[in-house]
Each structure stands twice: as C-alpha cells, then as structure tokens.
C-alpha cells in the first residue's frame, strides 16, 4: 500500500466516522423532539382535563350560589326586619349565613360525608321554606345501615338537583307539595340517592318556559352529566344518574331523580 492509498483509506474512515456522529446526532435530536412532543401532548391533555374539572366545579359552585336564591332569601328576611320580628330575623340570618359558609367550605372539597351533605340540604330547604311558607314539606331519610360519618359523596352534586325539584317542580304546583330525599343502602361500598317530588314534572316545567325562550338557562342537566362523567374518570367513583317524569308511567305527577354511587377505592386523598 502506498502512502496515498493509506491516506485515502484514513480519510474515508474519518469521513464515515463523521457520518456516524452526524447520524447519531440527528437520531438523538429526533428522539428528543419526539419525546418532548409526547411530553407536551401529555401535559396538554392533562391541562385540558384539569381545566374541564375546574370549569365544571366552578359551574357547580355557581349553581349552588344561585343569585336568584340568594337575593330572594335576603328579600324574605327583610320582611321580618320590617315587621320588627327580631328573633325570627336572627334565626333566618344565622341559617342563611351557615348555608353560605357550607357552600364555600364544600366547594373546596372533592367529597363530604353523608351527614355533612344532609346538614347542607336541611339548611338549604329551611330557607326555601321560609320563602314559600307552606308550599311544600320535605323529608330526608337515611337508611341506618349507611354509616353517615364514613360514607362519602361528591360535594355540590345533590343540592342543585334538590333546588331543581323546588324551583321547577314544586314552585309551579298550585297545592302544597312534597319532597322526599332518601339515601338507600345497596352494599358496603354502594348506595343510591333518590330525590322525588310531586310537583308538575320536568316536562311540564320545560313547556312553561318555552313561551318566552331564553328566560332561564336550561343547561343545568347537561352540566350535571358532564360533572358525573368527570367524576367517573377519576376512578374513585362509579356514578350513574337517571331522571324520570312520573307522569310517563303512572297517573301521578312529579319528578324522580336517582343517583347510584359506588366507591371504587378507599384511597381518597
């Protein structure tokens, strides 16, 4: 081999070495970009999911702090002020303040105990009764087999449904109405909640609104469905929901809402 030939071989070797390095760099950088892309996509999906959770939670809080309810309640309390009924005024102002405190408190938590939820519903319904006087009666029944302090329920889920029953079902009924809320035992990790009223039924209530459309937003059931979807995605619960207009299956009127809850894990944080 002449020196020239050796030179050529050496330079070829060097060249291929450079090629290998370049190829390596390209491979590495594509790998990195791909990895970054996957990470960003994952992050984005995560953020989207978080955003949806926050949106629905905000919506849930808004539906609890329904301005219509807040202002009408204060207006009813004002009546007692005008009448100089100091004790009644005090009683309802304290109840109202308790309720608002519970709204704020629960909105920061993913779940509450059944007894806490019962407390909120009772406070809420007492104020509604103040407004509507003897327009309705309510009962809350919890099966004694359910451990009220230990069994959990997602926060801010039931109250908007109960409010619907009062505002859309019982509100439009001429005679006094009834509202029954029951927590029913299924097994150690599962229970159902039934909210039943003998008002005019959600179909008739919807028809009333159709006269002048847009009057009230009717998306509340959609919001609820999305919230349940998201809760199911957390894999902490399995929740199913159904709503029946009682006039469809009997000669009674009213609305029956049923929710089934199953706790999938004890691993709540």
């Amino acid at each position, binding site marked *: 081999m002449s020196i020239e030939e050796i030179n050529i071989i050496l330079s070829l070797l060097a060249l291929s070495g450079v090629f290998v390095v370049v190829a390596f760099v390209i491979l590495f950088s594509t790998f990195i970009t791909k990895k970054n892309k996957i990470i960003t996509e994952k992050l984005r999906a995560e953020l989207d999911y978080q955003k949806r959770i926050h949106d629905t939670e905000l919506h849930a809080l808004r539906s609890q702090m329904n301005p219509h309810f*807040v202002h009408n309640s204060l207006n009813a309390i004002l009546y007692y002020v005008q009448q100089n009924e100091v004790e009644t005024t005090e009683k309802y102002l304290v109840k109202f303040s308790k309720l608002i405190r519970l709204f704020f408190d629960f909105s920061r938590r993913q779940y509450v105990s059944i007894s806490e939820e019962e407390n909120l519903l009772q406070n809420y319904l007492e104020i509604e009764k103040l407004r509507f006087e003897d327009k309705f009666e309510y009962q809350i029944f919890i099966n004694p087999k359910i451990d009220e302090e230990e069994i959990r329920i997602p926060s801010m889920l039931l109250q908007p449904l109960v409010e619907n029953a009062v505002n859309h079902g019982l509100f439009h009924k001429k005679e006094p109405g009834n509202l029954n809320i029951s927590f029913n035992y299924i097994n150690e990790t599962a229970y159902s909640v039934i909210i039943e009223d003998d008002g005019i039924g959600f179909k008739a209530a919807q028809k009333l609104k159709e006269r002048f459309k847009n009057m009230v937003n009717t998306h509340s059931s959609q919001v609820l469905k999305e919230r349940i979807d998201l809760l199911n995605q957390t894999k902490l619960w399995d929740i199913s929901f159904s709503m029946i207009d009682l006039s469809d299956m009997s000669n009674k009127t009213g609305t029956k809402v049923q929710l089934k809850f199953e706790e999938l894990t004890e691993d709540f944080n």
Partner: protein
Amino acid sequence: MITAILIDDEPKALGTLKNKIKKHCPNIQIIAESQSPTEAIKLIKSLKPQLIFLDIAMPEMSGFDVLDQIENPDFEIIFATAFDNYAIQAIEHCAIGYLVKPIDNDELVKTVAKATENVLEKSALAKNKLLIENLSVKKFQDKKVIIPTQEGLEFIAISEIVHCEGTDGYTRIHINERKPLLSSNSIGHFSKMFDKHDFYLVHKSHLINLNYIERYLNEGYVLIQKKHIPVSRNRRNDFLNMLKNK
C-alpha cells in the same frame, strides 16, 4: 295620586314591597295586590290601574306572560326581579322601569318618580307592546330599542345602530342613514343594554356595532362609515381576539 296593583307570588316579597311603598311613595295608592298571575290579569282588566309592580319569575306564568295576556296594556310597569340578566336587558330595551330585590329605598323612590312622569306622558302602551314583540324575536339584531330623547321616544332597530359615543354623561347615538340622537343616559347604560351581542366597547366613550366595521388599522383605530374610532390600548388584544373568534 297614582293607582297601583302589586303582583308577586311570594307573600313576604309582596309584604316588603307594600311596606316600602307606603313609607316612601306617598303619591301611590295601592288599589289591589295579588299572589296569583291569573288573578292579577283579572284585577288589571277590571280595575284599570295606572301602574303595576310586576314580579317576573312566578309559578305557572311569568310576569311577561301576564303582560302578554292583556289586550291593551296602557299602564306603566315597574318590574321586580331578584336576578335575571336576560329579563333586565329586555326591559331596558323598552325604557321600562325595574327594581332588583331586595329593593333599595332610594331606587324605589327614583323609579316611582320616573313612572309618575311617564303616566302623564301616556307612552306606556307603545313601550309594553314593543317588549312583547321583542320577546318573540329571536335574533338580537332584529329587536328594537326605545331611546327617550327631549322630544319623545325614538324606536330604533338595533341593527341600524352604528356607533354610540359618550360625551359628558350623555350619549350620541349614530344611526345608519339618519341624524344622530342624543340620549341623557350614559354610555355605560348602552354598553350594558347591548352587552354580548355584536357590540363592543372599544374605548371608554365608544361603543361600536361590529357589523359595521370596515377595517382595523394597526395604529389602533377602527374604520366605521368613514370615521376613525379609537381602540384604547388595553382593550386592543381582547378586541382583536374577539374579532378572530367571531
């Protein structure tokens, strides 16, 4: 004295209102009150009041439905509502009075004084009829608004309003192919009235109808019917984003 009927389904709300009127509005003579919309319709027809206080959200029938059921609604109305932006906007379009619950005494006195003036003007029928008409119109730009001026009431289609310009608490309303109108309401009033419906407050004293924009200039102006209207610096981004998403 002005004769009035009070209508609210909630007994306590009715009681509160009655007490307040008795205390603060000596020129109002309450001739009837009702908790039921159907009864209220009968009372209005038989007693022919000059003014009614009308709750909006009631069972069976809304306050708007009550109004719709009366053939010749030539009485002044003061609506009462706890909270309903959509309804308030509709009422404002027709220059009709309203009160939010719980009712503020000063607002009550002011609104009643305005209604008292209006009773003498006898403009109620046209305003009430427009309210009913507007409620059945779906597209916002197809509705009409009433603009009170010194000469009287102007009925203007919202789609014809090009631009509103605030000047010292007054508002000059520029209308397509017509002479501008001067309203004693502030620009904020109009901004609220047209909120979320193809109108945008590009500047603290300029509210524009987006359908009339011809061009946006990067120095921060929109061109509308050959006029340069400034877009204030801190509203530019928001404004451009909104145009893009429109």
